[in-house]
């Protein structure tokens, strides 16, 4: 099948992950992965982002498919159940708002900037080498550390399920995918 320009968005996803090791402020670019799917689903009522433009999904398809880094087994039933998908979305949102709260505390001066990336919501990895000071408020950097933690955690989870199950198993429980599907369902109920 003929490749289109959007079949190469995985390059941006990979670059994004690499840039976070050199300058954490690039983490802000990850907001595109949050806003674009929401805008598409709200405005057009489709999952166009998942279907075409998700660089992360493409990266998993490439690693697990072409590079063969996947066992290609069926994902367990509980992982594709609505309870798990909606529960994971809720958990993800709670952790996301906690991260925003911590950012607010740094902006308010109630807490110092922590130059750590929290992997899987528990492992605090020193990440000071990627912060070189900024003209902006430390809160800007705190959001970058927090947001990169979210992005790295979801990538690691996606890589684990890619290895264990099918390449794009992450898509089954991806919080953005679940959220945009809920928006599409709600929009289609309206019409």
């Amino acid at each position, binding site marked *: 099948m003929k490749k289109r320009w959007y079949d190469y968005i995985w390059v941006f996803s990979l670059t994004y992950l690499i840039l976070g090791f050199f300058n954490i402020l690039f983490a802000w670019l990850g907001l595109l992965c949050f806003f674009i799917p929401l805008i598409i689903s709200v405005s057009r009522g489709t999952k166009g982002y998942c279907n075409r433009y998700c660089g992360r999904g493409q990266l998993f398809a490439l690693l697990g498919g072409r590079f063969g880094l996947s066992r290609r087994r*069926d994902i367990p039933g509980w992982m594709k159940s609505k309870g798990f998908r909606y529960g994971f979305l809720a958990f993800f949102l709670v952790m996301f708002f906690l991260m925003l709260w911590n950012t607010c505390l740094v902006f308010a001066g109630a807490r110092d900037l922590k130059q750590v990336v929290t992997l899987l919501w528990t492992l605090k990895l020193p990440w000071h080498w990627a912060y070189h000071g900024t003209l902006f408020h430390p809160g800007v950097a705190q959001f970058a550390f927090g947001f990169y933690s979210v992005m790295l955690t979801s990538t690691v989870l996606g890589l684990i399920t890619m290895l264990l199950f099918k390449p794009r198993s992450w898509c089954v429980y991806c919080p953005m995918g679940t959220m945009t599907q809920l928006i599409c369902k709600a929009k289609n109920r309206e019409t």
Partner: protein
Amino acid sequence: MEPRIRIRRSAFVDAASCVACGCCVKVCPLGAISVFRGVAANVDPKKCVGCGKCARECPASVIVIQEAQA
């Protein structure tokens, strides 16, 4: 004489469990599958020949290849 029944294979999607990721759409060589309004994948039975590529690719394994009466 009994009429001849042509049996052909086709993909069937469990729409209730489909996550509408679109992985199936990308691999279908005949363009027989699409994601309808971001809710679930939809197979065009006139185009589908039941090759099974979508079923192999589906990360949620909600597509099955079954015999369909033509």
